[in-house]
């Protein structure tokens, strides 16, 4: 697989990549091995591009929030201050409606705010032209086949990593609120009732529920962003073909501009919506951990 891709890359060096090669190249992570990952699961590999963008945007999130927190006074707020406070209020209200323990909200509400802005910023990397940062990186690194993906949430690892974090919080609050015994009791008696014959069924249902919540939580974000990124690449391909195709060339150019504009505008909605959904689901799942079945 790796050799095939490299062979294709070598061939592309002379003739320009085919559409398939272009897409595959853009969907390959810059990882610690320097080659595309071959196995589905390999924990010895780490995606450097995802980590770089995720940590950079995470720090940017914290920096933006810290800017507002530093100047926070009870006086008249400026526009920036007001905007951050608006989001804080929004998240605080949502958290208050879903999680009734004030003690838990001290951590969960700031977590939700961070996740919302962080995921939004990671998603918003989609608005940067798909080839711009990879091209800059290839120029800077001197390797014209260097891999670089800029949308961290379009990496399943990042999305599932965050949803696993939410799962851990759910388990923590389950034990904290219900006690270890109470939670284990619930694992075996809910949702069907406490009869010894139902214990295995209940436990299986609980495991399925936790797995389904976590995987759907991560997969939803990943799927939306991955698909969005892919569409941007297809639109880029559409425009890239305009010079070579004679009379239909200008049509392709117009198509690129039109489709690119429409998809980018529509994607603004998806970017914000997916960040909001991810935050809301995190709150809902953690809220469920506070309540008995």
């Amino acid at each position, binding site marked *: 697989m790796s050799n095939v891709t490299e062979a294709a890359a070598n061939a592309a060096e002379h003739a320009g990549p085919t559409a398939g090669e272009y897409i595959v190249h853009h969907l390959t992570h810059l*990882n610690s091995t320097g080659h595309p*990952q071959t*196995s*589905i*699961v*390999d*924990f*010895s*590999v*780490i*995606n450097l591009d*995802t*980590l770089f963008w*995720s*940590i950079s945007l*995470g720090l940017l*999130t*914290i920096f933006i*929030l*810290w800017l*507002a*927190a*530093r100047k*926070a*006074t*009870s*006086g008249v*707020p400026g526009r920036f201050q007001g905007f*951050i*406070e608006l989001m*804080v*209020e929004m998240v*605080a209200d949502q958290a208050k409606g879903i999680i009734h323990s004030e003690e838990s909200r*001290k*951590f969960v*509400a*700031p*977590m939700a*705010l*961070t*996740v919302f802005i*962080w995921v939004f910023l990671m998603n918003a990397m989609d608005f940067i032209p798909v080839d711009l940062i990879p091209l800059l990186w290839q120029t800077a690194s001197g390797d014209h086949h260097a891999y670089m993906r800029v949308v961290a949430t379009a*990496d*399943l*690892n*990042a999305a*599932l*990593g*965050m949803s*696993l*974090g939410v799962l*851990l919080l759910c388990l923590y609050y389950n034990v904290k609120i219900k006690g270890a015994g109470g939670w284990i009791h619930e694992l075996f008696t809910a949702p069907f009732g406490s009869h010894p014959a139902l214990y295995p069924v209940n436990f299986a249902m609980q495991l399925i529920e936790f797995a389904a919540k976590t995987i759907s939580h991560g997969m939803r974000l990943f799927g939306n962003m*991955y698909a969005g990124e892919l569409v941007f690449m297809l639109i880029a391909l559409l425009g890239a073909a305009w010079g070579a195709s004679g009379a239909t060339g200008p049509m392709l150019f117009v198509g690129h501009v039109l489709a690119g504009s429409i998809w980018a505008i529509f994607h603004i909605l998806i970017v914000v919506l997916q960040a909001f959904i991810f935050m809301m689901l995190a709150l809902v799942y953690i809220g469920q951990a506070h309540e008995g079945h």
Partner: protein
Amino acid sequence: MNLNATLFAQLIVFFILAWVTMQFVWPPIVKALDERAQKIADGLAAADKAKTDLANAEKKAVDELKKARESAAELRAGAEKQGTQIVEEARAEAARIVSAAREAAEAEAGVAAQRAREALREQVATLAVAGAEKILRKEINAQAHADLLAQLKSEL
């Protein structure tokens, strides 16, 4: 779509970012928001209080004005009454003085008239005696006719 160690790195970053926000971002912003809400509530309460205070002050001012007007009217009525009384008294005094003066004048005039009448009576008696002397061409003893003369005098 391959899974690798990025999963765990992202998991750790997730908790670190959430922790930093909880520690350094959330509390000051929420505190500022609560304080501002309190400030606004205080401001609104103060505005309400000022409004009622103003209404009370206006009512009080109207009352004071009414009271002042009433007392002024009362004062004027008193003054008018007193003025009338003073005028009445002065008029009565004047009337009394006038009447006293008239009485005195009348009395004086009466005395003077009396005196004039006395004098006239004297003169008439003398003239009568002289007339009678001339008519009778004889001496009349004044002593002998004094009674007659006195009688005549009182009849005048």
